[in-house]
Every structure is written in C-alpha cells, then in structure tokens.
C-alpha cells in the first residue's frame, strides 16, 4: 500500500511538453505495482530475479539519492535550445522575492524527479481465453484497445485475438505501439530513433552528450523497456570510464546512475569522484545505499558508530574494495583530501 501511495505522489502535476522544453518527460508510474509487473525478468539479465523498484522507491533510498544529486538551480533550469521571447522584468520587495524563490525551487524539484529503476520487461503475456472453434476466423490477428478517457497508458486494456482463436493480453512492445497509435506522446517517435542503435549510440557517447541521450531515452521509452535499460546502462558505463560524473549532477539521472553502480557493486569510481569534490556526506550515503542493497555483506566493520565520514570511507576502502585499480584511485583521493585539510582550516580561519 505504501508503495502505491509513493507512486501516486510521484505522478502529481506533470505536464506533457515537448522534450526540448522540459528536457525530459516525466513517466507516470501509478500502475507500477510489483504484482502487476509480469513474470520474472532481470534488471539487465533474465537470470537476475531481484526487482529493484521497491528498493528504489523506499523513502530512505530516495532521500539519499536526492541528496547525492545536488541542487544547482542554475544548472537544473539551464537555458533550453528553443526560440524564446525576450525576458520579462519585475520589481519585487524582499518578501515577494522569497516567495518567488520558493516557487523556483518547486519547479526545479519537479525537474529532478528520477525515472524509476525497474526490472526489465520481457515479452510475456497472459492468455485469457482459448477457443479452437475460432481457428482461422481471419488471416490477421485482431488487436483491441480500450480508448476510454482518463486511463493511464500502462493500465489501458489491450488484448489480441490470434487467428487460431486465442485471446491474450498484448506484449510490452505491442502495448507501446498501440498506445502510440491512439495516444501519441509529444516527442516520442513511432519507431526507435537510430540514435539509440548501438553503433550510433557509441558515436554520441564519444561526444559526451550524456544528458541529451538520457533525456531523449526518458521520452522515447518506458522505464522497463529493454532498450531504455540498455541505453541508460551503456551511458552510465561510459560516464564511469571517463570519470565525468559531474555532468549528471543536479539532473534527474544522477540518482538512477548511483543506484545502478551500487546495484552492480561498482561504487568505487563514483566514491572517488565524491571525495575529490569534497562531498563526503554523499560518499557515506552511497556506502549506506550499497549496504542496504546487499544485505548479505556485513556493514558493521565499515559503518562503525561515532566515527566521522572520512573514516567511514577509509574503512570501506581498506576492507571492502577488492579491485586494485579502484582501490589505488580511492586511496589517492583520500590522501589528497587529508593533505588539503590543514590548508582548508587555515583558509576558514582567515
């Protein structure tokens, strides 16, 4: 029940705009309940049976991810590439200005809503009725869509009557297609854009346009679409390789990215970046997230009580990190941070 409430909260008040204007369409997820998600599938592979969504939607994890994302309002509401009218001006008192600032924060928060991390959907369907008497009633399969007003796309009833008489629910791909026929989404292409094909994706990633790809993927696909997962995971990998995590800070993609690295036990590069940028609280939150995800690992050694953040990270580095490359980088970062501490203290004093 708590899950559905959270889902409902997440879907409040978002408009359908062109993706250029919103730099990312918000995906409605009221109907994302674990019992509705069809049979077993994996986050990336079918072999994995764990569903990341409940964990992702939990309050604790959401808070951690939001804190890690940051809130640089100038970056969140950065100028979009469309022809704009001239700016308007107002003269405000201090009170009015404060109110306006609050309004701006609300706008920015909506832009930071994270696309949910879901299990990959497979092409499974449910057979509703088998009728051999209807065999060969037609050459083609008949697809029936419910176009009632007010239904969410994911909840809409779409059934298929095969030529052999079987009545079944539509697969995920069919659902996407049919929803596009009757209720096209602004900015969504009817066929997957070539940009997301593997070779072209590499070209764009080489140029470093991570935000563009991720924003467009949010508009084009549903979060459980195998293509969406492939594209986002590849992007996160490239970001990790190039150590360009900061590009995605203060965007809606940072949370899911951090979640991805924690899920696949690869938080060291991100952690290193956080230490380098003096974001130790974020680092500690990331470690906590990691332990929450992987309950089998004991966190008592690392997350001791009454020690400060730097020590937690040090503990993690010494005890949990196996990969020598990552370990070396993290150790270097910690050393650099420690070396800079006395200078920082001096600077703050003066």
């Amino acid at each position, binding site marked *: 029940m708590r899950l559905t409430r959270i889902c409902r909260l997440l879907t409040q008040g978002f408009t359908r705009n062109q993706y250029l204007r919103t730099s990312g369409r918000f995906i409605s997820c009221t109907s994302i309940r674990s019992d509705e998600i069809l049979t077993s599938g994996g986050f990336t592979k079918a072999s994995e049976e764990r569903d990341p969504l409940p964990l992702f939607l939990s309050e604790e994890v959401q808070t951690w991810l939001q804190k890690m994302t940051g809130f640089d309002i100038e970056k969140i509401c950065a100028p979009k590439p469309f022809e704009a009218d001239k700016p308007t001006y107002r003269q405000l008192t201090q009170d009015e200005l404060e109110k306006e600032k609050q309004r701006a924060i609300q706008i920015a928060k909506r832009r930071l809503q994270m696309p949910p991390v879901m299990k990959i959907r497979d092409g499974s369907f449910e057979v509703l009725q088998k009728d051999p008497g*209807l065999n*060969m009633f*037609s050459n083609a*399969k008949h*697809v*029936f869509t419910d176009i009632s007003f007010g239904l969410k796309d994911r909840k809409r009833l779409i059934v298929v*009557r095969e030529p052999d008489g079987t009545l079944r629910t539509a697969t995920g791909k069919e659902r996407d297609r049919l929803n596009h026929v009757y209720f096209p989404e602004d900015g969504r292409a009817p066929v997957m854009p070539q940009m997301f094909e593997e070779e072209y994706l590499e070209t764009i990633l080489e140029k470093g346009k991570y935000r563009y790809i991720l924003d467009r993927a949010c508009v084009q696909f549903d979060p459980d679409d195998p293509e969406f997962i492939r594209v986002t995971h590849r992007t996160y990998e490239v970001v990790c390789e190039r150590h360009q995590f900061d590009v995605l800070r203060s965007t809606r993609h940072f949370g899911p990215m951090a979640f991805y690295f924690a899920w696949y036990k690869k938080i060291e590069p991100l952690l290193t970046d956080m230490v380098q940028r003096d974001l130790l609280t974020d680092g500690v939150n990331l470690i906590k997230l990691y332990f929450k995800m992987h309950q089998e690992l004991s966190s008592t050694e690392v997350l001791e009580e009454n020690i400060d953040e730097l020590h937690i990270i040090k503990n993690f580095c010494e005890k949990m990190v196996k990969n020598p490359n990552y370990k070396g980088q993290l150790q270097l970062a910690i050393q650099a941070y420690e070396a800079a501490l006395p200078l920082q203290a001096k600077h703050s004093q003066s």
Partner: protein
Amino acid sequence: MPSVPDKSTRFMIRLARWGCTNRPFYHIVVLPNRKPRNMRPYDQLGTIDPMTNLYGEVLVSINFDRLKSWLNRGAHLSRPVEHMLGLAGFYPVHPTSYLFAMRNQRKAEKQKAESVKEENKSVGSQS
C-alpha cells in the same frame, strides 16, 4: 401475427464506413437505425481498420466506458459490431465468427486436398 420489431427509433451501435475507394475504415458510432450511414452520430465509440498494418494486425479501438453507458440506455448492436465485441472478449463469441472460421477451415482443407492430389498426379506421371 408476429409483430415486426420497430427499428425506426432504435439506437444502433453500428459501423459507418469512412476512408476512400479500395480503402475502407470504419467508425463505431451510435445513431438511430433509419438514419443515413455516415450521418454525424450521437457518439463515436471507436474505430476499426480492416486493412492489416505492417505487423499483420487489424486494429480495433473501443471506448468501453461509453459503450457501457449506451448499452445501459438501451442501444442495440449491429451484427459486425457484435462480431467484433465477441472477438474482443467483451461479449461471448458471436455465431458468425464461428461461421467464418468454419468456412475458412473448409476452404483450407479443400485446397490442401487439391494440392495433395496434384502432387500425387505428378508423382504418378513420373513413376
């Protein structure tokens, strides 16, 4: 004397053929029976595209919400619409659907039989 049902005042949920020559497209509409086929309807409940698309599908859209409300108000259905709703699973399958299926099955069997005959003939002639 058996009474003939007065269809003149009946609301019908029926098909209006739109599209153009050699390309039919049907609207599922609500109109009194005697009115012209393509007259502006009381309500449109959906569409049927009988020509298969790239994926070999015949697309049917139905606004079940409004359909239910019209049915509650006493609308009658025409045969093609009943056929479609049967296929959709909303109604039980219509006898015409079974009829079509049976016809097609028989045709297929016949063709198969003929093709087998021809094969036998050619085999026979060879041997």
